[in-house]
């Protein structure tokens, strides 16, 4: 399939999905329209592959009503190799999420609007990834923005929290769009064209370039959910239907990274050079802040949302490291960093899809997404447990998942950057590594907490104790499990296939210093080898004698069941005594109290008879997002005050109105008198 054929298929299938959403009988709507959406995703994957492999690029031109030649060119869809990578990511995530949605979507998410918006959402993202010019890029950007807002509102629109989330999301998205539009306007007017090739060829520099760079960076960073522009993420992701959250987090957010890579690599490379530290700082801070917030929250989907900020932060860190190294002339290592960025993008897409889908299943089964009220799902939901577990390993960057391979590559790039001749590198690389290591460490804790609290131990609430079954008789119910399984397998597969993957990415970036090693692992020339297969073989080799020993012992000494756990003696502890997600994170809140600023309240009420004996102790602790509290809340207040003050302009007095006109008249008279 050529890229153009793929795009046309995508468009056709989008129309089909909308048609089916409206035409199919409600019982089969999800199967029909969701199936078509899955088709969109698959077509997107093929488009992406075609984009990666085809030389020269295929081009699809869509004329618009504004005459060409004036500065706005017709729409141009032509997936570049890099865009192709993101097409594949979007398509694959979309297909898996659509498959899951067939079984999962219920209520408003399974409505005509829900499924139509889902298809349009995928279409918008694919347009962005295959856009060859500014206007189609923005077109796709806004399409996915509005479709995802609709999807966000699809579930529980009655709840004010959802509406608030939607407004936050819409406003931040629009901030992103407007800064992109303005930034693009600057470069497009300089380049006298809106096509990306012309913009790259124009080699824009100077103040215009700097302004455009910063605006575009803000736009992309907002969409990518980087600190301090991340505030929409922890609100929007939890409230959206889970298969939509998966797509938003695993695919849409990545397009921000795509934009940043294009920005620094292709559109404004000269301008970007001095801003490498800025990009790096954005990435590193997002990583650390995101995972810190994720580690202390007990809302599973909020946790996943903050973890998205973390992972995107890591990818942007990789881009920043690449920029710094390339500024220092260390191009080989720089490319490894960029390859790491793409690996991080792909691996995060894989595991975060599964995690959100798993969270969806949990929500579906128990109606809870608060880890403090979950537990014990390993018994009723084995498929979800294992797929979530594998994905959580990916998120925690444990071998041999995709997350591990990606972070390993980034770490290699970091330690192989030569800081001896370059003070910037000598300072930036260790700091980056330190914060990144903290990020990795906290990530581990976060996902141990998420997995342990949701699936292990005993249920912490009635809802968790009596979950809905994993599979029901609803049409397409098995789709949920299948989608999760496919996702989890891909987390492992991407980890194992890191060699070919990295080779492909390096050729996308026009570099040949990475080769696939003998067993299919990743060999970074002069740097190091990561061979997951070999590692696996050794592990298996070591596990075999252990396993034999276990088999022998199992026969000789049988296991005995007991109904008591240790609680300072064999006491039957109530689930209320279990550790919860909140208590799990409590030490961290203390250690990072300076950064998190928790609000605590402790109320002690004493017995009436005795002032020493305590009757009741109430302790409350809340950790909110300080970026939001410190920056956004005042801005919101300011806007409200400004709005109230502005009303005085229109206070009903005709004299005031006439005075405005009069003032304008006097001013104009003065102006025309001036020579």
């Amino acid at each position: 399939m050529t890229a153009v054929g793929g795009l046309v298929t995508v468009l056709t299938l989008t129309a089909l999905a909308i048609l089916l959403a409206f035409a199919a009988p409600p019982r089969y709507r999800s199967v029909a329209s969701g199936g078509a959406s899955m088709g969109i995703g698959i077509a997107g994957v093929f488009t992406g592959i075609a984009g990666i492999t085809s030389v020269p690029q295929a081009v699809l031109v869509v004329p618009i009503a504004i005459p060409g030649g004036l500065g706005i060119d017709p729409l141009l869809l032509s997936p570049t190799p890099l865009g192709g990578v993101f097409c594949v990511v979007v398509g694959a995530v979309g297909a898996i999420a659509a498959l899951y949605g067939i079984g999962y979507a219920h209520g408003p998410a399974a409505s005509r609007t829900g499924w139509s918006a889902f298809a349009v959402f995928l279409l918008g993202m694919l347009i962005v990834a295959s856009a060859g010019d500014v206007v189609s890029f923005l077109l796709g950007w806004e399409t996915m923005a509005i479709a995802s807002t609709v999807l966000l509102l699809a579930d529980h629109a009655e709840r004010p929290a959802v509406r608030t989330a939607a407004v936050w999301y819409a406003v931040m998205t629009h901030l992103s769009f407007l800064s992109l539009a303005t930034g693009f306007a600057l470069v497009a007017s300089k380049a006298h064209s809106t096509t990306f090739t012309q913009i790259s060829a124009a080699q824009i520099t100077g103040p215009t370039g700097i302004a455009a760079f910063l605006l575009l960076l803000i736009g992309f960073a907002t969409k990518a959910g980087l600190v301090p522009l991340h505030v929409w993420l922890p609100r929007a992701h939890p409230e959206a239907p889970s298969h939509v959250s998966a797509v938003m987090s695993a695919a849409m957010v990545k397009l921000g990274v795509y934009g940043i890579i294009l920005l620094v690599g292709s559109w404004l490379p000269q301008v970007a050079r001095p801003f490498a530290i800025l990009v790096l700082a954005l990435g590193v801070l997002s990583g650390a802040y995101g995972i810190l917030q994720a580690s202390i929250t007990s809302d599973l989907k909020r946790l996943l949302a903050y973890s998205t900020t973390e992972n995107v932060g890591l990818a942007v860190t990789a881009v920043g490291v690449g920029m710094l190294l390339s500024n220092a002339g260390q191009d080989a290592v720089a490319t490894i960093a960029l390859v790491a960025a793409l690996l991080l993008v792909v691996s995060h897409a894989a595991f975060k899809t599964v995690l959100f889908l798993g969270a969806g299943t949990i929500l579906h089964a128990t109606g809870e997404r608060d880890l403090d009220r979950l537990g014990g799902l390993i018994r009723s939901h084995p498929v979800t447990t294992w797929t979530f577990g594998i994905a959580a390993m990916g998120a925690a960057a444990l071998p041999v998942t995709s997350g591990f391979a990606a972070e390993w590559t980034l770490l290699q790039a970091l330690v192989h950057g030569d800081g001896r001749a370059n003070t910037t590198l000598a300072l930036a690389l260790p700091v980056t590594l330190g914060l990144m290591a903290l990020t990795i460490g906290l990530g581990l804790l976060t996902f141990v907490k998420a997995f342990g609290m949701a699936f292990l131990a005993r249920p912490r609430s009635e809802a968790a104790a009596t979950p809905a079954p994993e599979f029901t008789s609803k049409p397409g119910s098995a789709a949920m499990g299948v989608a999760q399984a496919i996702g989890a397998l891909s987390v492992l597969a991407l980890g194992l296939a890191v060699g070919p993957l990295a080779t492909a990415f390096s050729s996308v970036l026009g570099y040949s210093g990475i080769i696939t090693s003998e067993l299919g692992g990743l060999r970074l020339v002069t740097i190091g080898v990561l061979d997951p297969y070999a590692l696996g073989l050794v592990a298996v080799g070591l596990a075999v004698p252990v396993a034999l020993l276990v088999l022998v012992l199992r026969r000789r000494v049988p296991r005995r069941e007991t109904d008591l756990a240790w609680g300072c003696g064999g006491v039957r502890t109530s689930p209320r005594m279990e550790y919860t997600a909140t208590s799990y994170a409590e030490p961290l809140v203390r250690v990072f109290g300076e950064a998190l600023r928790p609000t605590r309240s402790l109320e002690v009420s004493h017995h009436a008879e005795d002032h020493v004996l305590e009757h009741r102790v109430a302790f409350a602790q809340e950790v909110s997002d300080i970026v939001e509290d410190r920056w956004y809340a005042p801005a919101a207040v300011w806007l409200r005050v400004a709005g109230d003050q502005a009303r005085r302009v229109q206070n009903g007095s005709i004299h005031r109105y006439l005075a405005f006109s009069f003032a304008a008249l006097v001013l104009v008279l003065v102006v025309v008198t001036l020579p």
Partner: protein
Amino acid sequence: MIATLLVVLQVVVATAITPLLIGVMRQVRARLEGRIGSGVLQPYRDVRKLLAKEPLRAEGSSIILVAAPLVLLVSSLLVVALVPLVTTANIPAVPNDLFVVVSILLIGTVALALLGLDAGTAFGGMGSSRHMMIAALVEPTVLMSVYALSIPVGSSTLSKIVVARGADVTRVVTPAGLLAVVALVVVVLAETGRLPVDNPSTHLELTMIHESMILESAGRDLAWLEVGSWLRLTALLGLVVNLALPWGLADSMQPLALLVAVVTLGVKLLVAGGVIAAAEVFMAKVRLFKVPELLAGSFVLAFLAVTASYLAG
């Protein structure tokens, strides 16, 4: 092939020597505290005893109760296989890259933490939480030390680092190298649950970290856990001593070299273990929320090591 055999040998030797190391450490401590002690071979007897006892399974626990100890054990064995203890040779495709080693250690860490959560007891969760917090905070120091050690060599592959240090004495005694090794020592203490971070011999649940996670395990489950944890100590301690004194490792199948290597390793390990045990006698466990300060201190050492390598190198 030779490399594979060497690695197999290394695993066998390390596994065999580990209980002895633990026994020596306990014995040194006992003697210094004025007790007779149970003898240096007691750990071997403990393991044998545990393997013969029937394992229990508490209500509410899951497959994790069985799987986690095995995962810990295998991950520890894997680490032992990768770290240069007896030999600097390694299986060609298998990277004994320090980042990989650290990640494999983390698998064991995670397995333990999940085990702590599995039964749903208050103590298990508490231990798991503390364990993961320390693991998370140790991570920066670990990677930073690796970074510091890798700079002079230009590689994060452990065997290369050890060989390079062995080949050139001046590399060992650089300020950067020393700082990095000291930082690594703190890391090892934290990772293996030694004083002053954790007290391996405590019987008070509220102060436990490592022990509280394995409260539900019995019989062979407990045996795997104990051996797995011990092996971690062997591997990490062995790594530190080999980085500090990078001599005597074998790189071929010559019997003499092998013998020397095994003996050297034994001596280095037992001496180091003895020193640690002796030091622990004079040390109290610090409060949990003082641990981050300790780790921050070691992080700063490692960080200084890195910048020193760059700016001095």
